Each structure stands twice: as C-alpha cells, then as structure tokens.
C-alpha cells in the first residue's frame, strides 16, 4: 500500500529542489559564485551582510541547507513508510547525493571555481532532482494502480524516450561546460536540434494509438512545449551574453534569460525521465503483431486508465 504522505513529501522536495537549482543559476548568472570566499560559514558568520553578490550566494546556501534537511526527512519517511526496498534505497541515495552536492559546492568556493568541479556541481544538481522526482512518481497512485496498456509501439516509444532522455542529460552537461568554461557551444547547438527532433517524434508516436494517446500524449506534449520554449530561451541567452559593449555587470534581462534557460533544462530532464519511466510502467508490448501494421485495432483490446 502506497504512502500518500511520502508521495506528497517527495513532491515538496522536488519542487524545493527546482527552486534551489534556479537559485544556483542566479549565482552563476550574476557571477556571484566567489562573493563568499569561505565555506561552510560566510565571512565567518552564519548570516553575513546580504549585499552585492553575497545576496545570491548566501541565499543559495540557505535554500540548499533547507533542501538538505528536507531530503533527510524524505529518507527517514521512506525508510519507515515504504515496503519496497529499492524505493527506500532510492530515498537514501537522494540524501547521499545532496550531501555530496553540498561538499562540491564548498569545493567550488575553496578552490576558486575550477571548471570541472563547477560542471560536476551543476550536473549533480539535475541528477538529484531526477532522484527525488522518480521517488515522487513511484509513490503516486498511477504507479501502483494503473493497468497496463498493450501497444504495438511500446518498444519503439520506450527506446525513443531513453534516447531522448540520454540526449537531454548530455545537453545539460554540454550546457554546464558552456556556462562555466565558454567551450563547446557547437555541441550544445547540435544536441538542441536532436532533442527538438526527438521530442517531435515522441509526440507523433504517442498519438498513433488510442491507448498511448490517453496515457502519455499529454505528457509528451508538455515535453515538446518545454523543449520549444527552451530553444527560444537558448537563442535569447546566446544573443544577450554576446551583446557588444556589455560591461562588467550582467543586465537583468541577461540574468533572467540565462537563469530560466538553465532551470528549464533541469525541468525538461525530469519531465523526459518521468515520461520514460511511465512508458515502461504503463505500456506492454503487444505480442505477434509487428509494429509496421497500420490499422487501428478495435477499442475493446485496450484497457484504459482508471478514472
């Protein structure tokens, strides 16, 4: 029997994590990463003067501390409320990840933002978001109660989603490298094109049958919409960060554009991963019917989702 409390708590932690990722994005976008030169205290204090770049960096630390504590609560709750052993370990793994993330955050400050630590810190943040998001998914009612849907396209949809999610994760790594080192922009562009193409294929695939249409189409449309918005944001960020005559201080339009672009990237990864997992949970491969057969079968073959 699933724990509703655990599910809702996991949703809370996931939402908090997205806010934390946005706060981290603001730190990078405002170039405030080294405004507090010490760690774990800030200028030797728990609460330093909140001026200049310190506002962004210290706020990020405060939110990170809160998310850390929330994740500890998640692990404890999962250990007590979950009967599935792998779900318990997932929650514990999330806690371990957030602790590692805090250490990486400290190392970025102590070693003055070496690129590889900053990139790892950024990518681990997205990974942590995914861990918590998955925990929220597997504790949801759909995961435990929804019937499976036979689909001739189950295999191809699942493979397409795995590929897309992998591309998105690579894209986040490429994006972090661009942000922290200025290198690799061309790979970022290529991956963006591939992801856009794949998200379109996903929508088309999910629309080919009634069963998948009801189960996954809305989620696929959400992914497609987010990817489209991200493409525009990426273009805007590219233009704004290369504006001639840009001074030492990034203007607010640039800060907002790059921060939202980075945060949306994390959300897209999560949405794609959850769609992938849902496809495995909800879709069953229909046997003895090749995928190349075009006609739509009769409606009695499929079992719909519970109301």
């Amino acid at each position, binding site marked *: 029997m699933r724990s509703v409390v655990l599910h809702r708590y996991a949703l809370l932690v996931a939402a908090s994590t997205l806010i934390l990722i946005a706060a981290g994005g603001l730190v990078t976008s*405002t*170039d*405030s*990463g*080294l*405004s*507090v*030169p*010490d760690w774990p205290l800030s*200028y030797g204090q728990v609460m*330093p*003067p909140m*001026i*200049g*770049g*310190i*506002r962004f960096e210290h706020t990020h630390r405060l939110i990170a501390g809160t998310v850390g504590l929330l994740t500890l609560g998640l692990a404890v709750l999962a250990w007590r409320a979950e009967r599935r052993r792998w779900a318990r370990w997932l929650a514990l793994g999330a806690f371990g990840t957030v602790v590692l993330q805090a250490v990486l955050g400290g190392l970025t400050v102590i070693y*003055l933002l070496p690129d590889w630590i900053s990139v790892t810190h950024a990518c681990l943040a997205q990974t942590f978001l995914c861990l918590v998001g998955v925990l929220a998914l597997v504790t949801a009612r759909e995961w435990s109660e929804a019937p499976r849907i036979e689909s001739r396209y189950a295999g191809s949809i699942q493979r397409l989603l795995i590929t897309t999610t992998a591309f998105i994760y690579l894209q986040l790594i490429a994006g972090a490298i661009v942000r922290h080192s200025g290198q690799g922009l061309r790979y970022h562009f290529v991956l963006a094109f591939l992801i856009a193409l794949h998200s379109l294929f996903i929508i088309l695939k999910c629309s080919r049958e009634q069963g998948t249409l009801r189960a996954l189409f809305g989620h696929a449309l959400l992914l497609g919409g987010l990817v489209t918005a991200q493409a525009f944001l990426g273009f805007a960020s590219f233009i704004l960060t290369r504006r001639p005559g840009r*001074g*030492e*201080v*990034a203007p607010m339009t640039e800060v907002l554009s790059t921060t939202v672009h980075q945060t949306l990237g994390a959300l897209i990864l999560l949405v794609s991963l959850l769609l992938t997992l849902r496809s495995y949970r909800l879709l069953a491969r229909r046997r003895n019917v090749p995928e190349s057969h075009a006609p739509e079968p009769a409606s009695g073959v499929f079992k719909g989702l519970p109301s």
Partner: protein
Amino acid sequence: MRHRTFALVTLLAAGILRFPGMAHAADLTGKILFEGQAPVKEVQKADADPTCKAMHPQGIENDSVIVGADGGLKNVFVYVKEGVTGAFETPKESVAFDQSGCQYKPKVFGIQTKQTLEILNSDATLHNVHSLSANSPQFNLGMPIKGMKLKKSFDKPEVMIKIKCEVHPWMAAYAGVLDHPFFAVTAEDGSFTIKGLPAGAYVIEAWHEKFGVQTQNVTVADQPQSLSFNFKAA
C-alpha cells in the same frame, strides 16, 4: 694611491655589473591619445550595497575608458616587453591598492614579481579581492572591516591580471606584473614616463583594457627618448 684607484675601479665595475647599462640610461616619456569620440560612460547603479549607494546616489560611472580634455587616454599600461637583460632586485616598498568609494584605486598599476601588494579596505562595507591570475596562484580574499589590510604578491610575470570584487560586480582593476621595473601607467592627460631605461633596443607595448595592445620598437641611448601611441575605438 694605487690601492685607491683599484678600489674605485672595482666599485664602478661592481656597479655596472649589478645594474647593467647604468653608465648609459635615460627616461622614456610619451603620450597616449585617443582618436575619435570618447564612448559614453555607462552608469551602474550601486543599489546592491546601501553603503555604496549612499556614496554614489546617482550610480557609479564605468571607468574603463577615461579620455582627458585634450584627448589623453588614462590607465594605459606601458612597459618594456622585449630587450631587458639582467636581474633586478625586488623593491622593498609595497604597492598600495585601496578599496575606496566602492572602487579600486588605482585601477591599473604595475608591480614587480614578489613585490608586496598591500591591499586596504577604506570603506565601511564588505569588499572582496579576487585575482584572476594565470601564472601565479589566485587569491580570493574577503575584507569585511574598514581599515583592514592584507599583503599578497605575484610569483611570475603576467600582463595583465584582472582583479575583481566578487561582491560588487562593477569593481575591476588590472595589474601588470613584471620582473623588471620598466613600466608606467598613463595619467589623466595620457602622459607616461619610464625611468632609467638602459641604452639598448627595446619593444615597448601599450595595453588598454578596452582598446587592446600596440607595440613599437625604440632604441634608447643616453638621451631622454619620446614615444607616442594613438588608440581608437574598434
């Protein structure tokens, strides 16, 4: 008498060996001008810090390009890039670097390797000094208290090292680190003087934060020499 003469010759030889070209040295002076319309100075709000805002209620003008009334370009770092020979003692006196009025002062300066940079916070607010050096270890120092002093130095030559405040993003300065003393920074009128340059052939480079670098060859004898550069907007 013979002993006195020998002592004098020995002292002179030691002096020449210690300071090569000491017998023939001259000052290199010049002026650096800016051609064309000086760019409009961007004004940055200092609202991020109440102390800075109180000092600059209308904002802080971008000080990257300062052109004097007669077209002189300030804050150009002029130095001998090639042609210097011999070793030079590290000066015992420090180079002063201040955080005052929520700005770095001086904005551009020269310093020799291992010479002490004395960093002072003259403001009643929290500042931070981060050196973005590539050839020497970087430092990122919090200076939260007015009157606080810190001492640092750079191990290896580097032209130029950007120094920034990570708390106040408009604050930036540049240090030219050299293993010899032949450098200068232009004043408000664009003038500069490099003192005591021994006779010889040199490559002189002028660096500006926004307008890049220019070089010229010069041969110095025992008379003062003059040199000029003209920068213009890209």
